[in-house]
């Protein structure tokens, strides 16, 4: 589904991603771990098309197509979803209105009929309930005044509504209390399917107890320095990143 080859990216004249190779197949769950500042969010944002970052070398194929040539909204419409590490506030725009516009622009691009307000409300109410979200979040402005945990939950709610093919979750677990972590993990697990892939960025092995990954990768200094099965996460929890290439070589 996704093939990343020798991906280099920089921002503000500084190289952040320094040759990433990664292959993700449909049905797989991959976890990316790594120290602060190693480039995890940058990778997620580059995949989603954030133009703050300049790709200086390498390529990314999504379903065989050149992902880097697509606009961010085209990527979203093609099924790429990013749960932001820092979800953005949009004052004055109701959460559900925003999401319905998003769902419908994606449905339209896929040649599906748009959902009317009634149908949309039925589907969304069900998913909100599953994620333990209060109905007041329908009308509240997007992320404005949401607590950290509420924002993360809202990202997963959006994911559930948008039904992406490739979901990238950037530290969705940080800021969640233990119960919320379980609810959110259940929400993510419910989305696992043979034709969908999930890339989870996290610092904590704990999340991976709930969302069990097929592969774990360690990102350090803009490179994947180690890959393994789910046991690698446990090992990292025990030993930390010591011994892995973590110092920056300029």
């Amino acid at each position, binding site marked *: 589904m996704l093939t990343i080859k020798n991906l280099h990216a920089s921002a503000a004249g500084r190289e952040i991603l320094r040759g990433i190779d990664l292959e993700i197949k449909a049905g797989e769950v991959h976890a990316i771990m790594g120290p602060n500042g190693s480039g995890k969010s940058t990778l997620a944002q580059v995949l*989603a098309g954030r*133009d703050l970052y300049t790709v200086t070398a390498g390529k990314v194929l999504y379903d065989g197509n050149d992902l880097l040539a697509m606009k961010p909204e085209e990527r979203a419409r093609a099924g790429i979803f990013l749960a932001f590490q820092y979800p953005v506030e949009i004052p004055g725009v109701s959460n559900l209105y925003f999401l319905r516009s998003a769902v419908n622009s994606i449905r339209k691009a896929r040649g599906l009929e748009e959902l009317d307000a009634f149908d949309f409300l039925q589907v969304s109410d069900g998913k909100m309930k599953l994620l333990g979200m209060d109905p007041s979040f329908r009308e509240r402005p997007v992320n404005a005044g949401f607590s950290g945990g509420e924002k993360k939950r809202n990202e997963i709610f959006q994911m559930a509504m*948008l039904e992406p093919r490739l979901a990238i979750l950037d530290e969705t677990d940080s800021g969640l209390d233990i119960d919320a972590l379980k609810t959110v993990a259940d929400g993510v697990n419910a989305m696992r399917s043979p034709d969908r892939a999930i890339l989870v960025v996290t610092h904590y092995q704990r999340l991976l107890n709930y969302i069990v990954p097929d592969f774990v990768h360690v990102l350090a200094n803009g490179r994947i320095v180690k890959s393994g099965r789910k046991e690698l996460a446990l090992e990292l929890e025990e030993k930390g990143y010591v011994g892995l290439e973590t110092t920056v070589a300029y």
Partner: protein
Amino acid sequence: MSTSANQIEVIANQEYKYGFVTDIEQETVPPGLNEDVIRLISAKKQEPEWLTEWRLNAYRHWLKMKDPKWATVEYPPIDFQSIVYYSAPKMKEGPKSLADVDPKLLETYEKLGIPLRERELLSGVAVDAVFDSISVATTFKDKLAKLGIIFGSFSEAVQEHPELVRKYLGSVVPATDNFYAGLNSAVFSDGSFCYVPKGVRCPMELSTYFRINAKSTGQFERTLIIADEGSHVSYLEGCTAPMRDENQLHAAVVELVAHDNAQIKYSTIQNWYPGDKNGKGGIYNFVTKRGKCLGVNSKISWTQVETGSAITWKYPSCILQGDNSVGEFYSVALTNNRQQADTGTKMIHIGKNTRSTIISKGISAGHGKNTYRGMVKILKGAEGARNYSQCDSLLIGDQCSAHTFPYLEVKNSAAQVEHEATTSKIGEDQIFYCQQRGLSTEDAVSMIVNGFARQVIKELPMEFAVEAQKLLGVSLEGSVG
């Protein structure tokens, strides 16, 4: 620099879809202004002597006045002798019914989305259509008349209800008030008149649709709305004009009078031609709007969505004379390309326990210049007066500007006045977030801007809120890559 920062600066050609010209035979007086022209306008309208005199007095006073310079807008001096002060489509004599209206005019309004033909009337909205200097049609007139509501063109009101016109004309905005109000008083051609009798709640939205068509023509309309004791009325005006390279002047005066327990809600969707992306052409919208809360417990509420015009200069205001009266001002002003807006309000608290609310949302894109200028004046006798003002500015790109000038004059020490102001930039992160959810850049900007303007949009009558939202989106087309 990242591409989206670049994108934000790119101002593409924006289509103004109301820019067409109607090819119709017009009756036009030669350009220029003098007492003869004023007499001619007055004669064409078969006005009573007192009104001709009123105009002439206004003109003589205006000659002594100077074009105001205090607003933060720039434009070359206006040559008042090159303007045509009266231009009207030729119409058949006799009583106006829709059947008499030139089909070309009906077509024009249809193209503008303002249906005048009986079979297409918007339910719940009565329309008075003003084309250049005259009113060409008014819908639902008879139905309203059954309730005692007078709604129609100003010229008709002069003929049919001269006592009302004489009593209220200039009672809120005197002919000597300011330069453009003075000019309007001398040469005003048509506009809408509305009187709602005691205790009547007007069952439908009243609206006037102003259209400038003729070249080199100024539009000087005059609107007068009187809400008698305990009555309610909601009125909306919309405006468009053809695309022309030269600037055209629109200097209107609107006067509102609310008696005891009466309420007037006045909404504007102003979409005059804004000029092209380099600032060529466009309407100079120099307007005086003022309402007087004459009676106790009366309320006047202004809501405006200003997206058009090369220059907007207007301050819809409230004189809160009656005890417990309420004044409100909700405004969204959007300037894109080279547009300039200097707009705001004056709230003059005279009566006891008078309250006012000001919510102003300025949006600047391109090289747009947006100024909020507002005054809250609380007189000594205004025991218990309260005001709340909130002025927010949103910048799109970094070539545009926003200014806020709140003036405060409080003579009563017990008055409560609160002012909040914010300025923010539309964030690349907000746009990216929307894009990541599948929205196009334009939909993203439109959504963010509408969110910003929401407090004001929700004050509009339902029928028009949707139109206003679309307009905000359309007016920003091309402002972000």
